[in-house]
């Protein structure tokens, strides 16, 4: 069974842009390893001929007509945004 270590947790945490305190990493590593251990049980079943189930009910996507139904609601939608200016959301400078 694959045990997750500190660097695994750090890699996954970065992918998820999730800040984790240094001292908590070992505990997360253990938790994750235990959970992955638990899900190993799925390998006890042969599923080669089974079709994956993405949705609980068989359904087909409804199509929306190509019409404009939403009007400008900027003031309302941005009213409580953390940082805005001139109708824009602000983030730390992005360099391409």
């Amino acid at each position, binding site marked *: 069974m694959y045990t997750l270590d500190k660097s695994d947790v750090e890699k996954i945490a970065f992918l998820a842009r999730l800040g984790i305190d240094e001292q908590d990493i070992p505990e997360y590593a253990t938790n994750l390893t235990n959970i992955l251990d638990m899900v190993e049980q799925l390998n006890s079943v042969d599923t080669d001929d089974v079709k994956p189930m993405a949705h609980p009910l068989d359904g087909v996507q409804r199509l*929306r007509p190509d019409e*404009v139904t*939403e009007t400008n609601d900027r003031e309302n939608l941005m009213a409580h945004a953390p940082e805005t200016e*001139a*109708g824009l959301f602000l983030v*730390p400078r992005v360099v391409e």
Partner: protein
Amino acid sequence: MQWEVVIGLEIHVQLANKSKIFSGASTAYGAEPNTQACAVDMGLPGVLPVFNGGALRKSVMFGLAIDAQINERSVFDRKNYFYPDSPKAYQISQLYYPVVGKGSIDIDLENGSTKCIGVTRAHMEEDAGKSLHEDFHGQTGIDLNRAGTPLLEIVSEPDMRSAKEAVAYMRKIHSIVRYLGVSDGNMQEGSFRCDANVSLRPKGQEEFGTRTELKNINSFRFVEKAINVEIERQMDILESGGTITQETRLYDADKNETRSMRSKEEANDYRYFPDPDLLPIVISQEEIEQICTTLPELPDAKCKRFVTELGLSEKDARALTSDRDMADYFEQVQQSIDDARMAANWLLGEVSARLNKNALEIKDSPVNAEGLTGLLKRIKDNTISGKIAKDVFEAMWEEGGDADSIIESKGLKQITDTSAIEAIIDEVIVANPSQMEEFKAGKDKLIGFFVGQVMKASKGKANPGQVNQLLQKKLKS
């Protein structure tokens, strides 16, 4: 070492739908920031996507136009990555089951031949918002108006072997999507964006070399330059024994070079999985067939028809059909005056020359199809000569107005009255006694001189055919 260039293009086309792919907000260009971003586009907590059937329709139209497999069942997947212009921190795209499968198009090479370029697939996805880099005290501003605009990503097979082929492919795709009304293909507004994958391999080797991706090149000219400059760069590296780093590079038009992009997300793991908020998209054979019947005539078919039915040369036909607006303009004129050759000559001559000189698209021509039709009609009915028509055309272009009013106001009506012409001829003969003698002495070529003099005296308005005819009579007598 002989090197072979391998190029593949990924073209992102904004679909000409009124509303977004997953919400009912408008896709109109140029609105004030965040005034066309509803809650769904902003990725607020709790919102859900609803799929625009118009995007499916346009995607299928494109697939049919390139003879591609249309997948009756396709699925939307989430492509997960963090970037401020991507409000949900995932882009809804199609990885595993795209709507359009394998297809192909023919491109026209410079030597007149055609080459078949494969299209691997085309899939639907949503566009991201825009980052505005003007300084907001050291911060970047995000506008989500564009977020959620429907895109069709068209992926070519790595079949192109030169920058010119790449441009020809790009032009063909551009032409097709505009012909179909699938997209307005406006590169300045970002509705047609091209990424190029470029690699080199020793001639004869089957395995591909390491490729670099050139991103977001927004004009045909730049695509050609960027690719060529990148080929040179790679060749320099390889010839000196180095290796190519797989990376994304930006083209700098001012310096005419490519440079490595600051890592946006180095080695990103997008963790694609089917979007659980959307169900599989299903389209029936009947629906596909119905869409097929609505396809307009495509460039290649139109070109063929111009040659076989209208008698145009292949070169002219190709030039006229390369762009839908041009083809529409031509057909409108041609149908009105029932003279394909004249319409073609004028369009490819006078009109195109001026468009090129002023870097204009045909849709921005100051003289529209109606205007040109009006002018050509006056040539055909002998009101003016072809030569005078050019002057009239210049006036129409520079000052505006229709042919008739200009002809009227400038008094350019052709002189066709026999006695009037004869009078001018008489004057010319009298004014040029020595040439008259030489002519009588046998210098037949001088008829040209006399025609010229008559035309000059009539300020070009005399009907040249009649001048010739009447001069012949007079001189011979």
